Each structure stands twice: as structure tokens, then as C-alpha cells.
């Protein structure tokens, strides 16, 4: 594909930990508004890739471009400024703030008022604050947490914390949301809700890059899938192509449960189709 269409373009991305090659010469692109799944067995380099894109790790080699601009090696807050926001695998909500304030932190990069106009309580600063608060409340409704809007976040369940993290990332008006194993630790009913939510996000034109272990959750959801094993891309394609790809079946042979999951995921999509 032409790189002008790519929201995020990863070329030759490489990262070592000591002698271990965690990610090797990885290429892929994320297009606007799509849901791209990144899967692989444990230790395949998914989380490393994620952290390289989010700025939590620096690559040893390779390029990452966001909307054509090179962003590899930038610190996390600069990545966020460029419209790429993430969630954490183990929820990292801000425990000392209400739900709505948590979401408003996500809009940090959207604020234009300087400290002087805040101290002076200038009309512009106040209007901006009110607008961001209204938008945060809208997003809390969007992820289904409206009832808990003013709640203390420590009272939320794990699944609600995950939804809060998604709302928080949405508040930054992202072009791309990075989700690190969002299905982990969720009950089946919560999984359905999460899948619907992610489709809703993509429908708003926001691209979703999803790292997932749970193929049953991922395959019906993702438009395209990139499969990693030992840091190397072994396959890329639609969910159906991936399901029947010999290299993928090989990679998951050590993990029969995952294969069964993948097969079931196939059945459920076929049933739905």
C-alpha cells in the first residue's frame, strides 16, 4: 500500500534485550479507521512492539511514522501529542481522582489555556474547561459508565476500569488507539460489550491497534491481523486467511488450547455470517 494512506507505518522495527531479539525487522501499517490485530504466542514480541510504538521503549533500529512523520524514539508524551493513545494491560487509572477527572486527563493535550489565564480565571480558560468536561461526560456515556461518572475510581470493578481507560484514551481525540490485551481478565458478558465498543470506536474513524492473546475475541473483530512469533512477522491477512495459515497453525501447535479457541472463533464467525 502507499504510505500516504497509512496512519501508522512500521518499517524494519528491531529491538534486542541483551542477546535476545525481541522484535526483528518488523513491517506493518495501520490504516485510518481499521481494527488491526497483533497476535502471537507468549513471548512473540507483541508487548515489545506495543511499547516501541507507544514510546515506552526505544527501538534499536527501524522506523515508525505517524501520518508520515518519524516518531520512533520519542518519549510517550510526545507520542500522545501526535494522536496515538494507549491503554494498559493492568489497568492504570488515577486512583485519587473521580471517573470524570480521569477521563479529562486523557484530554490533556487538547488544552490551549496557559497557566496565567487559569490563575486569572479568564473566560477562555473556563469555557475550555467546561467544554472538555462535557466531552468527557459524553465519552463516559459512550463506554457505558454514565452511572459512575462522579464515583471514586477505586470502587470500580476491573472491567469498568478497562472501560474507563478506553474513555480516557478517547478523550485525547486520537487517530489511533493502542489496546494492550483488553480482553484479559474480563467476564464473557463484558467481552461482548468490549467488542461492540471497539467496533463503535472504529466506526467513529479512529483506528484501533489491538494486541491480543485471545484469538476467540480477536479474530471476529479484526479487519486485518498480523501474526508474530519469536519477534518475526509470520503472517498477515484477513481473519480467515490467518485462521488457515500453515505458519500460524505451526506457531500455535505448542498451545493446543489456543488452536481450539481459534477453531471455535472460526465457527462462531461462520455462524454469525
Amino acid at each position, binding site marked *: 500500500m502507499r504510505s500516504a494512506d497509512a496512519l501508522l507505518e512500521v518499517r524494519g522495527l528491531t529491538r534486542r534485550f541483551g542477546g535476545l531479539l525481541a522484535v526483528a525487522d518488523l513491517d506493518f501499517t495501520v490504516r485510518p479507521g481499521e481494527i488491526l490485530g497483533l497476535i502471537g504466542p507468549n513471548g512473540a514480541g507483541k508487548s515489545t512492539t506495543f511499547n516501541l510504538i507507544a514510546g515506552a521503549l526505544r527501538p534499536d533500529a527501524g522506523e515508525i511514522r505517524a501520518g508520515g512523520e518519524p516518531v520512533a524514539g520519542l518519549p510517550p*508524551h510526545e507520542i*500522545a501529542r501526535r494522536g496515538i493513545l494507549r491503554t*494498559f494491560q493492568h489497568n492504570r487509572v488515577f*486512583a485519587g*481522582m473521580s471517573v470524570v477527572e480521569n477521563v479529562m*486527563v486523557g484530554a490533556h493535550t487538547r488544552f490551549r489555556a496557559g497557566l496565567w489565564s*487559569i*490563575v486569572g480565571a479568564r473566560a477562555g480558560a473556563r469555557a475550555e*474547561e467546561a467544554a472538555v468536561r462535557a466531552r468527557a461526560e459524553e465519552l463516559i456515556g459512550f463506554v457505558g459508565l454514565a452511572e459512575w461518572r462522579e464515583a471514586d475510581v477505586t470502587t470500580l470493578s476491573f472491567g469498568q476500569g478497562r472501560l474507563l481507560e478506553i474513555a480516557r484514551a478517547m478523550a*485525547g481525540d486520537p487517530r489511533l488507539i493502542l489496546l494492550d490485551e483488553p480482553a484479559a481478565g474480563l467476564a464473557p458478558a463484558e467481552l461482548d460489550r468490549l467488542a461492540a465498543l471497539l467496533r463503535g470506536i472504529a466506526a467513529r474513524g479512529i483506528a484501533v491497534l489491538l494486541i491480543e492473546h485471545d484469538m476467540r475475541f480477536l479474530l471476529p473483530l479484526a479487519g486485518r491481523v498480523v501474526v508474530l512469533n519469536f519477534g518475526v512477522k509470520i503472517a498477515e491477512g484477513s481473519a480467515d486467511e490467518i485462521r488457515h495459515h500453515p505458519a500460524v497453525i505451526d506457531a500455535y501447535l505448542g498451545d493446543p488450547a489456543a488452536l481450539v479457541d481459534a477453531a471455535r472463533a472460526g465457527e462462531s464467525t461462520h455462524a454469525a455470517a
Partner: protein
Amino acid sequence: MKPLARWLAAALVLSALAFALSSYHNDVYRKLLLWVTLALGYNFLFGVAGQVAFSHFAFYGIGAYSIVILTFQAGLPLPLAIVAGVALCVAVALAVAIPSTRLEGFYLALATLALAQLFIVVLNEGGAVTGGAGGLADYRLPAILGVRVTGPWYTVVIVLLMLGTMALLARLDRSWFGRACRAVRDSPEAAAAMGVNVARTKVIAFTLTSALAAVAGMAYAFVDNTVNPPIFGLENAFLLLFMVIIGGAGRQAGAIAGAVALYLLPFVLSPLIGHHHALVFGVLMVAAILLQPRGLIGLYDALRRRAA
């Protein structure tokens, strides 16, 4: 205009109180107001931004000494001395804060503890400039435009300083900046992932609150008309931390409650236990952390909930 009216009413009531008090009680009242001012600033630094620093009281001292030295030794006019003193504190605060932002948790506390102790060494060894162990005395607030502010009127100046500090910090706390500070306190990684520049947020919070402490110190310099090293020692730096924790860290009402309670407690306790009120402070500190981490203000909330 409703909030403005509330601030004006507070200023009027707190100022009026000064005229009702004797000159001894005015002195107690001024120091109480200054403790509240310091606790409000320290609450922002420790309670909101999550930085444990022991340098807050040293900056109070730098402010007090710098105004005296700049006005009476360098001969600067008062307004210029205030600006120069604040600039000096900002420079010192930046010099400490920029490298310290790499330190996490209690390591910042120990670096700033060393700074605070070093400040006392410099005061003691500063010769004629700082007056050594005896400090500086025998000076009076110079007249501004021919007016000499004295007595209850000087208390009014401190009331306005306290309310100004409170309003400024309350506005910052409710803005994106306050949320960024809390986010950095609760989870620096998540804050950075939301676009918050963690190092810069920490440096701004530290420098700003240090400068506010320095301004309070400048006001203090003309309360006793003497500045000397023991006032700015470690004891009071600890007391400030205890005030904010016992009152309830992270909330202005908590900082105010803690400052008022711990400042006034010795007056109540001294007939009973003499000068050993610090023992009570220590016990209260441990009890607050173990039993009521939200402090006095959390206790008040809990009682009100039970009553309702």
C-alpha cells in the same frame, strides 16, 4: 460573581478579626495565617503533586533572609527586593528540581532534606551577611509611598497573601495542570501516555510552590522583625509535613484544618505537658496514616455521612 463575593467576604471577616485582637493575639494570628499559607502550598506540592520535599521551609527562610539582606544591606527598594528575592528562589528551586525529577519517592525527600540542612549551615556560617547563629534583627518594614503598614494593618496584608495563595492554588488544582499533577502522582506512566510531560509538570509544581513559600517568608520577615537559623530548621519542615498529613493531604480544607489544629494544639497542651507537644504530633501522625489516611477532613466527612 458569586465566587468573587465569597472571597471578598472571607477577606473582610479575616481582616476584621485582626482589629478585634490584642497585639499579642495579632502576633499569634499572623503566624497562624502564615502556617496556613505554607500548608496550602505544601499541600499542592505533597498532596496534589505527590512530591515529598523537605525544602519547603528552607524556601520560606530564603525568602525571609533575601528580603532583609536585599533591602537593608543591598539597599534595594522594597518592591524591587521582592522581585529579586522571588527570582532568586525560582533559580534555586529550578536548580534543585531539574535534576531531582529523576529521583522517585523518598529519594527526593532526602535530597531536599540535605538542601534544607545545607541552608542552615550557610546561615550559621554566613558572617555579616546572614548574621551567623544570631541572625539579623533591628530592622523595620520600610514605608511604601510614605505609608508605614503596622499593627493590624500588617495582619491584613498577611490575610490577603493567604487568600491569594489559596485562590491561586485552588484554580490551578481545578485546571488541566492540577489534574496533570495528580495524574503524575498516581501513575507517572499512565500520565505520560496521556500526553503529560512528567518531568516538566514536576518541575513547575516544585518551583511554583517554592516561590509561594518564599513570598510567605518575606511576609514573615516583618512579623518578628528578626530572622535567625533555628526558625527555618528541620523541626518546622517536619511539622509542615505532619500538618498536611494529619489534616488530610490533597485537599485545601485538609491543609487548613491540619495547620490550624497543630499550630493551636501546643497552646492548649502546654499547661498539661509543657514543651512535649511534639510527642503528641508524632502519635497523631502515625495514627492518621494508619487509621485515617484522609486525615481530619476525612474524619469530618465520615462523621457527617454517619449523621446523615
